[in-house]
């Protein structure tokens, strides 16, 4: 069970400002049912440009509802510029803290606010637009969003990033990229404790190379395939030639075979050696077919 502060419980059981303002000046919608939480924020300005009223509707857990409620309280009476300065940390602090794994709820609050303000400034109603490129496909989180939570909350591990914006919380296939973002921003701060990732060595013995290939498949490739119901098996290694078989893919997946092979090759070249060539063993495919609709 989560340990929620009394403030969180209060705002969950007695949420303030529930609803939707008609003819709102700003509307911000973030999240989705698939992600497990979503927030729709609406606000109205008074004649001085201050937020006269703000209301929310939220799908999500207790902390998602509590953070939304607090958000509406925090921004009432503020100008848009002042409101823009409300950070996810302000929201969490107001609640007397949130469990680490729930910090993404406070981030969602801030994002909804930004979306609503952007909507007011840009006019038309649109969903929170994605900036940058998507790093985590499981949760549709971009590099820009990740960079931001890392900077603003001084995060140093992938786990923390997952807690704050969900990226990395699914198949795990994006962990490598998230690590790189953290390293880029935090620099030396993280270098000493960065978790061991398979790294290209200078000169590998045959055994080391085989182990590194297996490790790279286990950690970098299989999780991503698994997320989509597939799998990969290492069949053989001969010099730089690596033979693999893909399992559990449906007919449509097979159409994309050549790209699968390329993905594996790219990863192995990145982590093991530039000379790796990947081949697919098609004979053993049928046997492992376990895809079900």
């Amino acid at each position, binding site marked *: 069970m989560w340990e929620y502060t009394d403030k969180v419980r209060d705002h969950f*059981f007695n949420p303030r400002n529930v609803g939707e303002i008609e003819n709102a000046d700003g509307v911000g919608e973030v999240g989705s*049912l698939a992600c497990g939480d979503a*927030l729709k924020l609406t606000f109205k300005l008074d004649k001085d440009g201050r937020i006269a009223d703000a209301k929310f509707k939220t799908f999500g857990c207790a902390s998602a509802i509590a953070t939304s409620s607090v958000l509406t309280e925090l921004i009432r009476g503020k100008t848009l510029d002042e409101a823009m300065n409300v950070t996810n940390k302000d929201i969490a602090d107001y609640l007397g803290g949130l469990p680490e794994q729930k910090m993404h709820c406070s981030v969602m609050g801030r994002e909804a606010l930004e979306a609503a303000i952007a909507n007011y400034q840009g006019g038309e109603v649109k969903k929170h637009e994605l900036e940058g490129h998507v790093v985590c496909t499981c949760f549709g989180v971009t590099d820009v969003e990740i960079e931001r939570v890392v900077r603003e909350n001084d995060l140093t591990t992938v786990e923390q990033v997952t807690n704050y914006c969900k990226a990395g919380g699914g198949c795990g296939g994006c962990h490598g990229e998230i690590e790189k973002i953290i390293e880029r921003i935090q620099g030396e701060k993280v270098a000493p404790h960065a978790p061991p990732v398979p790294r290209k060595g200078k000169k590998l013995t045959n055994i080391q190379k085989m182990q590194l290939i297996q490790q790279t498949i286990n950690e970098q490739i*299989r999780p991503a395939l698994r997320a989509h119901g597939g799998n990969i098996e290492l069949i053989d290694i001969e010099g730089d030639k690596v033979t693999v078989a893909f399992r559990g893919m449906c007919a449509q997946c097979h159409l994309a075979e050549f790209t699968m092979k390329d993905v594996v090759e790219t990863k192995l070249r990145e982590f093991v050696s530039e000379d790796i060539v990947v081949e697919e063993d098609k004979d053993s495919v049928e046997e492992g077919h376990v895809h079900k609709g």
Partner: protein
Amino acid sequence: MQTIYFDNNATTRVADEVFEVMQPYFCELYGNPSSMHTFGGQVGVRVREAREQVAALLGCHPGEVIFTSCGTESDSTAILGTLAAVPHRRKVITTRVEHPAVLTVCRDLENRGYHVIELGVDKQGRLDLDELESLLDDDTAIVTVMAANNETGTIFPIERIAEMVTERGITFHTDAVQIVGKVPLNLSETPIHLLSLSGHKLHAAKGVGVLYVRKGTRIAPFLLGGHQEGGRRAGTENVPGIVGLGKACELAARYMDDENTRVKALRDKLESAILAGCPDSRINGDPENRLPNTTNISFEYIEGEAILLMLDRFGICASSGSACTSGSLEPSHVLRAMGVPFTAAHGSIRYSLSRYNTEDEVDFTIEKMPQIIERLRELSPFVGQVSV
């Protein structure tokens, strides 16, 4: 505030009768069953009796019962012990809806080079037995399929699967922690090789489990050390736990009818009243082949943790397959394997009853559910929208 406990698939209260027989084994009869003196020896006698009580419930020979520390240990021992005994076989078959005690072990095996196949399930959580049959071959070391699913209560036809698998000379293991004590099972009538059970799911204490090993099954020990359990599981016996489990098995046999009549009727009442009282709700799982005590219901547009907290305020304990309750970010792997849409998976609640539940508790819950669901739907931006 009263506690209404509807989370018996997570753990159960220890039966008074069980607690009573355990007590002397802490401060009075604390001897080691392996000792040569009478003081320890008398404890050994009670362990033997407990073994007979377990065997009586399962319909097996006492010599086929190995006491372990929990269901998870039994599962690990069954799978890894079998693989160690048949090292030339490299294929493992399981299902996507297993408990993590099995699934995590299998996924780890995959990383160690085993060929692991996870069978999918249909919308009601059922397996395709023809598919399973087509996958069995000489390279298959073990097939491990749970007897009943902990989240939905769906029961798999393990007797049929056991026949199919063992006929081919392949070891069959079943994680039966949810079914033992709820549905009659007679191991003398099925060729199941290995079966795991857990004490705290049937009103015994936490920290004791059983691995049933059919006579003649090839399996290597998992914990090495002393000669306890005939050398198949080293480590000084958890005597109070074992004695209690023996009693719990005896009680389970006695209450089996109650479980399948009164408890089942309570479950059915709870379920149909909730479905009738809360629009946009649905059952997850196979309504026909299901544990008598379990119901898993999805409420569209709202999230499970929020429902649980509201229930908690009334002292009602249940659980959810939502992502938020587990601390992971994705909803239950069981519901996802069944293809339950995200809209419903996030808002799923499991109620699992036991013989200690009363009609009043069910009525109270039936009364509270609609207002909880309504209240949360008022907050939800998705109500009235087309499902995403």
